[in-house]
């Protein structure tokens, strides 16, 4: 399977999964989405095994790392500020309180996770 076919399969699997999950939510069926997700993951793994071209190399890794770092910085700052503002406004708008707390604590957990993995890989030495 070449890269073009693999990308087409990925799109088809994603669309199919989206349709199944969307339909399941409207019919209040929660078992079918779980099965569909597992099947979609298995289908993607099968497609990856049949792929003859290189999908990800060191350059793609570097690009993804850089994009992830920038996205993380923007998101954590924006989410932290938004969460704090929501918590501050909880007296006037009570529904914002739980959302603000959830957002703020999520950012804390995310940053703790990042620090934990950063420390682990710093000590590990070999990164491949």
């Amino acid at each position: 399977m070449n890269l073009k076919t693999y990308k087409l399969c990925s799109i088809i699997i994603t669309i199919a999964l989206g349709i199944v999950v969307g339909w399941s939510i409207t019919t209040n069926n929660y078992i079918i989405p779980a099965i569909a997700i597992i099947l979609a993951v298995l289908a993607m793994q099968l497609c990856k095994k049949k792929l003859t071209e290189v999908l990800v190399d060191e350059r793609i890794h570097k690009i993804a790392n850089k994009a992830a770092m920038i996205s993380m910085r923007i998101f954590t700052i924006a989410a932290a500020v938004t969460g704090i503002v929501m918590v501050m406004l909880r007296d006037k708008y009570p529904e914002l309180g739980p959302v603000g707390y959830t957002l703020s604590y999520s950012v804390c957990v995310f940053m703790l996770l990042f620090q934990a993995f950063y420390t682990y890989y710093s000590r590990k030495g070999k990164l491949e």
Partner: protein
Amino acid sequence: MKTRIKELRARYNLTQEDLAKKVGVRRETIVFLEQGKYNPSLQLAHDVAKALKTTVEELFIFK
């Protein structure tokens, strides 16, 4: 950084795709390497040099 990848590729009649397959990277990576727009890891530099039957010092010219 300049490279002699294109010159050596032509010598051995290798397309960018052929070279990419030989060293296990995507064709786009070879394109960026040839243009001097991407600094490869030591491993990749060594693999490309080996595929083109030369050394890293001969293949990559640092200004």
